[in-house]
């Protein structure tokens, strides 16, 4: 019984939250990696692009709520996602046309493109803050929990409850659907294959008649889908605040590089590596050991490897270690 309690404890505080957080990071990391693989620059506007997409989704959610449209127990924001993606795609194409295209055609070094993306970051941040303001916003509606801790305790008769938020389930389900569609697209369709070819060797791809304009456009469209969905999922699960989204760029970068930048599958796994190590290393295991060990060996301290304040620092340290020993990432990078 104690072992079961300990297991539920870990599930409740580590596994489920890490899985949800990891999925959110994974989507962002695939976004970073796609831009890096095909457009060949580190996009420092990642977090702000995600917040732009989320902002549009929130505006649509508010509109739907005001006309009384809802999805029942599901959050209304899911209905707003397709519309937000349209706006996001438009925004990205505009940015590309007025900003990135010039440098791409001039074959500027990646560093210059990264600098330009900082300019885009500033502008996007300003636009988001001017339109929706810098404050914290919750836009979740519908059923909050799938299983409540109390219900679970009554159902099973255990001491530990397992609470599963509906947003966590939505996040995981949407991520599975989105990522498997993306991999199917990249590996099985002709367009996806040409994207991979373009990422692998630009000149050869051009020689074999692949249209670079089309590739770039599709990349931005996929990026828009990823950015919007990733942002909305994060916002549903936690809350929407432009500053947090900007900060999220850092673990997302860490995930992308740990997985091997330019490699979507690596980025996908990298998200979970980062999320799990953050939560595993900062969780206080005291209660867990109380269940597992006999009473005489009960620990005094919290048995916490690192204080929760260092949550971000954990992921960055992992990144630094990976960069030192395997600069190409755990899964070899630069192949889409």
């Amino acid at each position: 019984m104690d072992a079961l309690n300990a297991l539920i404890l870990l599930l409740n505080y580590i596994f489920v939250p890490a899985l949800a957080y990891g999925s959110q990071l994974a989507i962002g990391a695939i976004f970073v990696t796609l831009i890096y693989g095909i457009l060949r620059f580190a996009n420092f506007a990642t977090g702000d692009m995600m917040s732009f997409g989320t902002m549009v989704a929130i505006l649509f959610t508010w509109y739907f709520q005001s006309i009384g449209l809802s999805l029942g127990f599901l959050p209304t924001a899911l209905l707003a996602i397709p519309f937000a993606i349209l706006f996001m795609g438009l925004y990205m194409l505009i940015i590309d046309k007025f900003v990135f295209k010039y440098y791409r055609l001039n074959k500027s070094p990646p560093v210059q493109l990264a600098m330009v993306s900082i300019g885009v970051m500033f502008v996007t941040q300003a636009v988001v803050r001017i339109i929706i303001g810098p404050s914290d916003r919750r836009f979740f509606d519908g059923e909050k929990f799938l299983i409540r801790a109390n219900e679970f305790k009554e159902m099973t008769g255990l001491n530990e409850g397992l609470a599963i938020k509906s947003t966590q389930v939505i996040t995981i389900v949407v991520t599975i659907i989105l990522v498997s569609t993306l991999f199917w697209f990249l590996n099985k369709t002709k367009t996806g294959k040409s994207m991979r070819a373009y990422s692998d060797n630009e000149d050869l791809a051009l020689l074999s008649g692949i249209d670079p304009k089309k590739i770039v456009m599709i990349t931005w469209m996929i990026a828009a889908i990823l950015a919007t969905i990733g942002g909305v999922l994060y916002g549903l699960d936690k809350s929407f605040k432009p500053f947090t989204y900007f900060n999220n760029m850092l673990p997302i970068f860490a995930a992308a590089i740990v997985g091997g930048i330019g490699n979507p599958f690596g980025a996908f796994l990298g998200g979970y590596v980062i999320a799990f190590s953050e939560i595993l290393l900062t969780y206080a295991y005291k209660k867990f050991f109380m269940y597992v060990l006999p009473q005489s060996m009960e620990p005094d301290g919290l048995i916490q490897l690192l204080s929760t304040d260092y949550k971000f620092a954990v992921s960055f340290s992992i990144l630094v270690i990976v960069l030192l020993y395997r600069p190409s990432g755990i899964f070899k990078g630069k192949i889409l």
Partner: protein
Amino acid sequence: MRKNLNVIAAYSIMMGLIILVGIFQSWNIALSIFNLCLISAVMTMGANIQWGYAGLINFGIMGFTALGGLAAVLISVNPVQEAWSAGGINILLSLFLIIGIVLAVRFVLKRYQKSKIRNYIIAAIIIGGIIIIRLVSEPGIEAIEEVNPARTGFLGGLGLPIIFSWIVGAFFAGGLAFVIGKVALGLRADYLAIATLLISEIVIAIIKHEDWLTRGVKNVIGLKRPAPYEVNLQEIEWFINLVEKFNSGKLALISDITERQTALNQFVIEGSSVFVKLCYSGLFLVVVIILLILTQKALYSPWGRMMRAIRDNEEAANAMGKNVVKQHLLIFVLGSAIVGIAGAMLVTQDGLFTPGSYRPLRYTFLIWVMVIVGGSGNNFGAILGGFVVWFLWIEAAPIGLYLVNLTTAGLEDTHFLKVHLIESVPYFRFLMMGIGLLLIMRYRPKGILPEKIEIK
């Protein structure tokens, strides 16, 4: 003279703008803008050395700034005796343990061949060491943080004049840069950018949460000053006379004696804060000028030529027998040390250390905008960038407000769009920075004052 005309013109326009602020808003605001411009100029010089001279991307400026600020605290605050006796021994012991771990790792690295076992041994040493350090330091840290937590709760500093911290800040930042450089300089440009950005976040996390060292988010306030205090100034005879002399014209207009006295008091209060700011300006100006002379000398020395050669063609420079790795490390350390000076100057000016205020947007990306806008590779350009961008950063809100009022003049004052826009005026600065950066990158990629190298 003629070839320097654009430099002189650009600087006179900049000074003119600041003087205009002085005339139309107040001299207090103008001087505080000017002081922060000077500090920004020091930061941009640091970043410019790394990016402009050597082509190294350092997105960790925030971390080095914060370390400089930490130096200001550790140098100037008086030591907290109680805290030292409560937990000082544990902290010192942990410090020795850290040194021991580093030496042990070095020993293993030197002694044994590269192998899997060696990696495991190193990992074991580090993990074991961290556990021992945790066990040793924990009671000490708890004891220190319990000493009068509302006022101290940390070890304090050395109690020296704060001006020394400018040098110590440079050493702190340089030391961190040495470690980062050893680790990360081999990376490709964009990886280096991301790695330094993340490392600087780790530095901030440590400064924020190690309360025994920095008081963390509880902030350290009331740091010593290298300049006199306003309150003291207001009571000194010669200062009051000086203010009276300056404002004699205005005072003469007031006939009533009591009224004249209150007016004089008002002038003295204003004058004292202007005077203090002028003291800071003088100190900062000295630093900027010294650094400018040194960096100019370096730029035109054989060493500067070598750095540019390495920047423009690393492989060729390497083939000519230049030690690229060593030079990169050197310049990374130098540039970061300059940023560390700026960090200490910033805390000195504010008189308080707030770890929570270090954010990458303000302390990393804004500095980069300054370098790029001003002109990378050109010290005068970098300094000008610091001035222009900081000026716009501060004055963006008034300009934005003016623009909003102009464009929405046709709307009523209570119209929701107008109200909303006026509320969001502070964010126009981001828009301005972004658009400014994009325009400069597109149409003048070398900045306002581009790099110009003459062969002498």
